[in-house]
C-alpha cells in the first residue's frame, strides 16, 4: 500500500470534468484499487459521484491511497495527475 497527501489548489475543488478524467486514468491501472479520503470520509476513486460527494474544495488536504498492482508507478502517475488537474 502506498499513499500521498495533496492540497487542492483548483478554485472549484475536485469538480466533475477532471474527476471523470481521473476515473478513466484509474481504469488503466490494472489491479490497483485507489481510495481518496478527505478527513474521515473516503471513496473509491473509480466511483465518480461518490468522489464528487466528498465535497473536496480548494485548500482541502486529500489522502490518496493505492493498493495492489504496481503501486509505486500508480502512485507516481496519480500524484502527477493531481498536480496537473486539481
Amino acid at each position, binding site marked *: 500500500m502506498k499513499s500521498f497527501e495533496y492540497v487542492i489548489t483548483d478554485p472549484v475543488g475536485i469538480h466533475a470534468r477532471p474527476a471523470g478524467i481521473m476515473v478513466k486514468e484509474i481504469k488503466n491501472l490494472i489491479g490497483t484499487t485507489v481510495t481518496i479520503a478527505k478527513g474521515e470520509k473516503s471513496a473509491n476513486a473509480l466511483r465518480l459521484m461518490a468522489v*464528487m*460527494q466528498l*465535497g473536496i474544495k480548494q485548500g482541502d488536504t486529500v489522502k490518496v491511497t493505492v493498493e495492489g498492482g504496481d503501486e509505486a508507478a500508480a502512485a507516481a502517475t496519480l500524484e502527477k495527475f493531481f498536480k496537473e488537474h486539481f
Partner: protein
Amino acid sequence: MITIQGKGVSTGVAAGPLYFYRRAKGTITRFTVEDRDAEWQRFKDAQAKAIEQLGELAEKARVEAGDEAAMLFETHQMMAEDLDYEETIQGLIMDEGQNAEAVVTDVGAQFADMFATMDDEYMKARAADVKDVSGRIVGILLGVVQGGIDSDVPVVLASDDLAPSETVQLDKSKILGFVTSGGSGSSHTAILARTMGIPAIIGVGDQLKEEYEGREVIIDGGTGIVAVDPDEDTRVHLMKKREEQLKRLALLNQLKGQPNETKDGQKIKIFCNIGDPSDVAAVLENDGGGVGLFRSEFLYLNCDDYPTEDYQFEAYKKVLSDLNGKEVVIRTLDIGADKQIAYFDMPKEENPALGNRALRICLNRPEIFRTQLRALFRASAFGKLGIMFPMVTSVWEVKEAKKMCDQVRAELDAEGIAYSDDVEIGIMIETPAAAVISDRLAQIVDFFSIGTNDLTQYTLACDRQNNDLGRFFNAHHPAVLRLIKLVTENAHKHGAWVGICGELGADLELTETFLSIGLDELSVSPRSVLPLRQKVRETTVSEVRERLMNDLMSDANTI
C-alpha cells in the same frame, strides 16, 4: 384574453401558437417484472444508448459552442455509467423486481438529492445533471422522441425549465420565444434565448396551464407579459412594439462598430448607465463604449446588513472583467433622499434632498466608505476603473475623499494586494455649488460627470416628482444648460474630461447643443446608445454651434 405576468430575461416580442415541450416526465408507471434478467438487460441497453447519444451531443456542442459546452455532456456520460448509480439500479431491479423506468427515476432523484443538499454551490448545481441523465435513460426506456418539438410551424415554447441537454437538442428554427414556469435569469433557457436574440419569460409559475396548448400568444420579453388569446388592443400595441424592435435591430446592425463621430469629425464617447452587474449584457449588446455610471447602491439595497468588502469586490471585479478593458466608472454609495436603507439607521430628516446623503454619509461614517474604497481598488486590477463621488459641494470634501483613497492604497501596499495605478478619480456635478466652483474642482480630479436630474432639481428648486410643478420644471432651462457649458469649459481648462450621466444625455433634442458645448462623453441607458449614435452621425457641429451657443448665452428675454 388571459394575461400572465412573469419575469422577462430576454427582450423582444414574439407571437405564435403556444406549445408545451414534450418530455417523458410524469408518464412512468410502476410494476413488478417477471423476468428480472431481461429487465436488467433493458436498462443496460438504454444506458448504452444514452451514452451513445451523449457522445453525439458532446460533438454537436463542441462544434456549436466549443469545448466548454462539450464537457457538460462528457460529464453526463460518466454519470450515466457511474458504478454507484448503476449498482443501486441493479439492486432494485434484480433483488426487488421493480421495472427499469421506475427504478431509474427514483435512483436519479435520490442521487440528485445527495448533490442538492451539499454545502457547495457548484455541487448543488450538479443535481440538475443527474436528473438530466436519468431523464434521458427513462426517455429511451419509454421510447420517447428526443428533441421536444413535434410541430410544423414555429411556436412559442412553454415548459417548466429546460435542462441543458434539452436546449442543445432543440430545433432552433421552430422556436419564436420561451415561457417557463420556473427558472432563473442565468438558467440555460435564458442564456440560450439571449444568444438566439429571441424573447424569454421565466417564473410564470402555475399561471401557465397546459390547456392553453395551441392557442395564440404574444409574449413581451421586456415587460415579462404573456398574453394568451390577445385582444385587438394588445395585439396592435405589442405588434407595434415588435416593429420598433425590429427597426432597432436593423439600426444596430447598421451602426454597430461605427464611431460616434459627427459629419465634420467631432467625436464623443457614448457610455452606459447600469445598476447591476447583470446589466453588462445590455451594454455589450448595444455596443456601449464603456460604463459611465455604475450605481453601487444595489449592493447595499440587496443586503440586510452592510455588504462586506469581499462581496463588493466580487461584484466590481465581475463588471470590470466583463467589460474587458473598457472604462467602468463606479459611483460610490449614493443613498439618502429618496433612497433609504433600514440598517443605515438614519434619523428622519425634514428635508432629505438637502440632508445627509451620498458623499456626506461616506465622510461622516468613514468605516463604511473605507470598505467600499478597498473593494474598488482591489477590483481595479481587473480592468479600467474610474471612481466617482456623488453630491459634492466643496473642495474640502473631495480632498478628504481623495485622502481616504490614499490611505486605502497605502493599506493595500502594506498587505501586498495588487491594484491598478491608473484609477481615475472623478466627481458628480449635481449641485449648483459644484458647477459654479468647477474651475477649482477640476484641478483636483480626473473627470466630471454631470448628474442632470439632481442638477436641474437643485438649480430650479423644483421637485420633479411633484406633478403640480409641471410648467415650472423645465429640463431644457437655460440656467441648467449654461451651467453645463461652464462646467465643460472649466474641466477642459484644467485637463479633466467631462460627461453627462443624467437622463438629459439621451435627449436627442439636445444632442447638437451638447456637441456644440464640447462634452467628451454621454452616459445613457444601454438602449439609448444607438439612437444617440445615429443622431451624432447626422450632425454637422460647425453648422449649428454658433447659433446654438448664441441663443444659449444671449440676453434676449424670450424664455
